[in-house]
């Protein structure tokens, strides 16, 4: 197995989880209704748990630092997250649309990873598949509800959110130099295949939600290579504030 390819894949997966977890958690206490606030916050916690599990694999199998150090002490250029997860939450329509497009990608990736030749990833994929199923069900139900069964305003808002999110959503599947090695090693299906599977799934849901997929969008790339939006550094600064004051603190 190509170790550096596998390591790179896990950093991409884990950094996406960490940053989307933080963004989702920013809704805690501000959600549109109590029940949804709690559900969305739980999902944020799950995402953080996935990041922690992935950083633990990096620590135990690739000689990387411990999970807290990986999450809190890496400078921005070392982060491998895509631009999509970095974007501010905006209003709830955008957050829900991102939640759906991101979790549809997660579901595709992690379903494939249950078959990974790298056993720690395959085991983790089996463990969290139920959580991911709920995340996707949550997101999909809302998108269909607001798209097809809501009001004219909710439909228009979801359509606008989809249009704004789309170039960034496509950017989740930025090609990696390591893809060929990952595919030939049987570690992962690769970004192109993941994108195709995701697109078929998303198209189906959007049809049910009576929302139209944007046609001529240019994917926004760069995150996987360490180039990020202006939104990431303020997020990292805020997220790591307490940790940087005292890395040994327990709370």
């Amino acid at each position, binding site marked *: 197995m190509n170790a550096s390819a596998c390591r790179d894949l896990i950093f991409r997966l884990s950094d996406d989880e960490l940053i989307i977890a933080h963004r989702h958690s*920013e809704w805690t206490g*501000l959600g549109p*209704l*109590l*029940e*949804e606030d*709690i*559900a969305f916050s*739980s999902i944020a916690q799950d995402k953080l748990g996935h990041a922690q599990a992935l950083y633990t694999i990096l620590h135990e199998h690739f000689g990387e630092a411990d999970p807290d150090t990986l999450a809190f002490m890496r400078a921005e250029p070392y982060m491998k997250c895509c631009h999509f997860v970095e974007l501010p939450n905006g209003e709830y329509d955008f957050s829900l649309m991102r939640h759906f497009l991101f979790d549809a990608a997660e579901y595709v990736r992690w379903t494939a990873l249950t078959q990974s030749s790298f056993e720690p990833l395959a085991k983790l994929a089996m463990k969290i598949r139920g959580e991911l199923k*709920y995340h996707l*069900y*949550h997101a999909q*139900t*809302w998108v269909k*509800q607001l798209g097809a*069964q809501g009001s004219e305003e909710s439909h228009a808002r979801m359509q606008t959110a989809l249009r704004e999110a789309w170039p960034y959503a496509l950017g989740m599947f930025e090609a990696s130099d390591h893809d060929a090695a990952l595919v030939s090693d049987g570690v992962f299906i690769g970004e192109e295949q993941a994108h195709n599977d995701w697109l078929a799934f998303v198209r189906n849901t959007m049809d049910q939600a009576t929302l139209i997929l944007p046609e001529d969008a240019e994917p926004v790339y760069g995150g996987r290579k360490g180039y990020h939006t202006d939104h990431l550094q303020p997020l990292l600064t*805020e997220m790591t504030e307490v940790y940087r004051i005292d890395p040994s603190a327990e709370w």
Partner: protein
Amino acid sequence: MARMISLDPRVMRMNIDADAAPELEPKSELDQFQTYEVFHQAKSGAHHVHVGVVHAPNAELALLMAKEQYGRRGQTVNMWVVNTRDIVAMETADADVFATTPEKTYRDVGAYMVRNKVEAYKKQQKEG
């Protein structure tokens, strides 16, 4: 403009004008979603037990909400939601139909005559 000061960075980022108090718009009564009663099953084969309510616009979303409200701790294998309007209940004023029930101790398990036989058997076992 005096900026609203908060320990919450999310509030600080919103740059809220502390001087300009927003007009409070009174909400109309009953403008919330309808409610669904939630029933939780801890183990396969166990009874579904009523655990509370969720607000939701329809049954599908009620189930979605119930999962996190009542299923995020401990063990769960299944959940039901039932629209509160579909619950058929007695009138509170009719509680008097139960008024004399506590007196009918002959219906309590403890009042069964077999109790004496069980006690006698236990005693016999101890002595024997």
